[in-house]
């Protein structure tokens, strides 16, 4: 069945709220990364925290609540790269969906 035809015939409306919720769900998952024995989320808080230190290694609590010693710079670079990559994808898909009616 052709979805475009179906949308037209059913006079279906694009549901922006649900679309945003789906994007949030999908891209939040992609922000997770397992590294150096812990699970991390590439979110602004973790990136900012890592940036605020100078030491070579820092001890952090990971997503599962485990305390893990990490190479600060290495993790920071990975989280920043992942954050930028995922945000770009998220933004692009959002733009694509925003045009729908």
């Amino acid at each position, binding site marked *: 069945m052709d979805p475009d035809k179906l949308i037209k015939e*059913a006079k279906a409306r694009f*549901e922006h709220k649900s679309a945003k*919720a789906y994007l949030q*769900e*999908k891209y*939040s998952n992609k922000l997770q990364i397992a590294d150096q024995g812990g699970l991390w989320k590439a979110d602004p808080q973790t990136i900012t925290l890592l940036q605020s230190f100078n030491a070579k290694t820092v001890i952090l609590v990971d*997503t599962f609540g485990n305390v893990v010693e990490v190479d600060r710079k290495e993790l920071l670079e990975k989280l920043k790269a992942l954050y930028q990559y995922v945000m770009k994808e998220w933004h692009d898909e959002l733009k694509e969906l925003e045009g729908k009616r």
Partner: protein
Amino acid sequence: MSRGALLFAFNNEKYDYYAMAEYTAKRINHFLDLPVTIVTDEKSLSSKTNYDFDKVITVEADTTNKRDQATWINKGRYQAYQLSPYQETLLLDVDYVVNSDLLSKTFVVGDDFCCHDTTSFLMYPGAPQEILSSYSFKTLWATVVMFKKTDRARQIFECLEMIQKNYDHYANIHSFIAGVYRNDYALTLALRIANGHSLLPRDIIPWNLLHVGKNTQVYANNNTVYNTEYTVMFDNWKKGKIRKEYITIKDCDFHVMNKDIFVELMQ
């Protein structure tokens, strides 16, 4: 270290689960690059097409479970640990539509066992989580389970067997209806028992299981074999009238609760 996926598929009066398993297996091969073993019965094997599973394991189907006036052969999932030919196994329901490599992460984020404890519904953001009963636990989901061959994982599956075989007893304790056996409920209890009546954060997959639920239809946006773009349509009842709403999704795994919708996607 061998790694692969395991699917249980037993045909009933209504649905060809073996065909569903073939469809899902192809997507697992393509998106996750994993071999797939099927656990089935001799009767279901008659649906076999030209797709070759990594291994085909036949067992005796337990036909004692009924749902919606049909036999629902979902018992025996506890055998996954013994039957899996892999050291690291992704155990999936056949109606899970793989559209990305997301599930590869389960082998890395989990220790030796993990499953979902939280769900989201497409087109129904903020839907409440299922619980066993008002006074019991939030349901864990057997739809996606990753396990490795360890003593602890074996114990979890042994607990699953114990609960399946004494389901009425556990239903009585936790005040849920025992009429229809559900692997989700059995897993909810088994994992807690094996962990000393607690739940370990590492046993939970750190993202939500995405469902396609009631009043929701899914249509593939094109006919390519490994299509990953879908239109999801929802009947929203407002003031006694249905308003059709839709979204489009891509590269996103989801679990289809309605088997008729899954069958349509396969075509």
